[in-house]
């Protein structure tokens, strides 16, 4: 069976890592002929971060267009642009998150990413919340669930959790502070507000963007070192707003760390409040700090959560198990009938209409703001106003404004 996974690049990242793990397993253990198709032009082969990809073909889009596959799989919303140009018996879409949520409401990509879920494809996804959402959005399309595995050799669980009876609470935060939905800065603030003895570690590739002084910052950590860091952690703190399968706490679970987290999408795959982790409300820095304080003070509870987290991790599949399901899903897609294009088009046009209406509303709002701004500009340009504004910028003007404010009690 010939399978093509379409990827933007092969830079080391969570989403690409999952695709590469499946591709490797399908080729090595399930006898499939797997190609990774780079849909963007690159000067050099891009697979930095991976030692080797011995069983796989890494090919360009042009090369892929000259071959024929049993299944071609898009792996990120932008790769769907090229999906139907790759000759294949069936086309599928591996949805690792609802990617429109990565963009803020005014962003054009948000509508684009959402529309790709209306394509006439079979879906594969890695989380039950995405499967449920897709079943509601596209009841006509088949959707196979294939959870991500965990590399149990890298994240090799200890036999038991060593209780932290009296040492400072070891808190770990990971992520890019510049990504708005990761909540890394908020997490760092909440953790640093803990008054009990604690050690806050932030693992990030962008330390300069953190803007919060923490006890320790570690950058550019490979997987194996990350496992060692989790092993030296009591609690992983995550205040994300969007996640797919929510991997980092699960990696922490494997090394005996519990988690304090928001009820982000994906958390319900394996997190249970009070059993193996603690949940906190959105935008509740004080509440988050209190939950961490609780763990710092109640070490028996901390140990129970950590022990249960480790037990949860033991029941999580490894990559070999995960790829078996990917293999079955691909076989099923290859042998099932083609998805109904009419139903897909119907869904797409309905969403497109919604998108256009939303865009119209935003445009109208902007026009109104522009009109108000123009009026203000006219007022500012009136004789005397402009001079007064300029006078306010001088040192004397600033002192005068401050004095008047004090006088008026404002």
């Amino acid at each position, binding site marked *: 069976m010939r399978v093509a996974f379409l990827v933007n690049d092969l830079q080391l990242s969570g989403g690409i890592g999952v695709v590469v793990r499946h591709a490797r397993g399908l080729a090595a*253990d*399930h*006898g499939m002929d797997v190609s990774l198709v780079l849909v963007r032009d690159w000067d050099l082969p891009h697979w930095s971060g991976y030692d080797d990809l011995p069983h796989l073909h890494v090919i360009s889009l042009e090369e892929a267009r000259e071959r024929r596959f049993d299944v071609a799989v898009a792996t990120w919303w932008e790769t769907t642009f090229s999906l139907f140009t790759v000759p294949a018996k069936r086309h599928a879409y591996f949805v690792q998150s609802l990617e429109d949520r990565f963009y803020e409401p005014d962003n054009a990509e948000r509508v684009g990413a959402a529309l790709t879920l209306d394509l006439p494809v079979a879906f594969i996804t890695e989380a*039950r919340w995405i*499967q449920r959402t897709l079943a509601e959005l596209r009841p006509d399309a088949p*959707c*196979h*669930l*294939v*959870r991500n595995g965990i590399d149990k050799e890298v994240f090799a669980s200890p036999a*038991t*959790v*060593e*209780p932290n*009876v*009296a040492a400072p609470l070891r808190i770990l935060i990971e992520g890019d502070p510049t990504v708005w939905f990761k909540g890394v800065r908020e997490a760092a603030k909440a953790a640093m507000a803990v008054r009990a003895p604690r050690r806050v570690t932030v693992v990030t590739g962008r330390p300069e963007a953190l803007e919060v002084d923490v006890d320790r910052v570690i950058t550019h950590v490979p997987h194996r070192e990350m496992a060692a860091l989790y092993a030296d952690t009591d609690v992983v703190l995550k205040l994300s707003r969007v996640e797919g399968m929510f991997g980092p706490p699960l990696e922490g679970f494997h090394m005996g760390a519990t988690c304090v987290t928001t009820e982000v999408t994906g958390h319900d*795959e*394996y997190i249970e409040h009070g*059993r193996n982790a603690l949940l906190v409300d959105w935008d509740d820095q004080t509440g988050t700090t209190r939950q961490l304080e609780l763990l710092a003070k109640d*070490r*028996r509870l901390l*140990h*129970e959560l950590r*022990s*249960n987290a480790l*037990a*949860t*991790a*033991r*029941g*999580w*599949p*490894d990559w*070999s*198990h995960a790829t*078996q*399901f990917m*293999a*079955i*899903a691909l*076989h*099923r897609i290859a042998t099932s009938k083609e998805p109904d294009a009419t139903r897909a088009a119907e869904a797409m046009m309905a969403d497109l209409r919604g998108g256009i209406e939303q865009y119209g509303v935003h445009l109208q709002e902007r026009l109104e703001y522009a009109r108000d701004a123009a009026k203000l500009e006219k007022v500012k340009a009136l004789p005397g106003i402009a001079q007064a504004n300029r006078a306010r910028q001088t040192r004397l003007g600033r002192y005068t404004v401050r004095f008047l404010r004090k006088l008026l009690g404002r």
Partner: protein
Amino acid sequence: MPRRAMPTWEDRIKQSSEPALRAERDARYRYAAPAIANAVVWCDVRLEGEPPAPPEAFAGEVLVLAPGDVHQLKGKRDVVVTCFDVIERLDNVAPLIEALESLKHATVLISVPNDVAGQTAWSEGSFAELRSLLPDGHTVANQTALSGSSIGPENANAPTHFIASWGGGALEDVREVAELDLDEQRDWVRRQLADLAFYKAAYEELRGERDRPAPRELPPASSS
């Protein structure tokens, strides 16, 4: 090369197994019995051992197949396939699932354990994955553990309590059966273990503090 279906650990349920596990297995075959009774062929997929006797009303052919031989059923009609306690013991489940799904004129029953203790990766999440690959219209039944007690005349089984009564009329036998919340039960066990480990570590910490030599008081510095 694709890996072949291989058993990874010993048969989970055998005659020497815990009685509760044997009762679980028997219940699964009883669940399948009405379907088997009306079948022309009953195929029990297993890695070793013998299947139980078919239901009395069954007059067809009994087949016992290894997971890798299920394809032999292709083309047979009115087949009932039971595949209990097998899937969790295979390294690669893909060929078995594919073979079972390809049977067009068969009733298939397959069991998956809810093994949250982590002996295998088969639990609620894995079952959700499997379900997404099963044919449309499949049904799911939950097998739950029961906890119970009965009060009645003396018999050969060891009782939990002895109840004596006198002065009134004869009392009727009582049987109480309730479904066991497996999560709660497992939580309780894990909590005991976690508490034990914690208090042991706390004890060691305190003992360390006690045994640590007290800081010696230095004599005041003599003035020169």
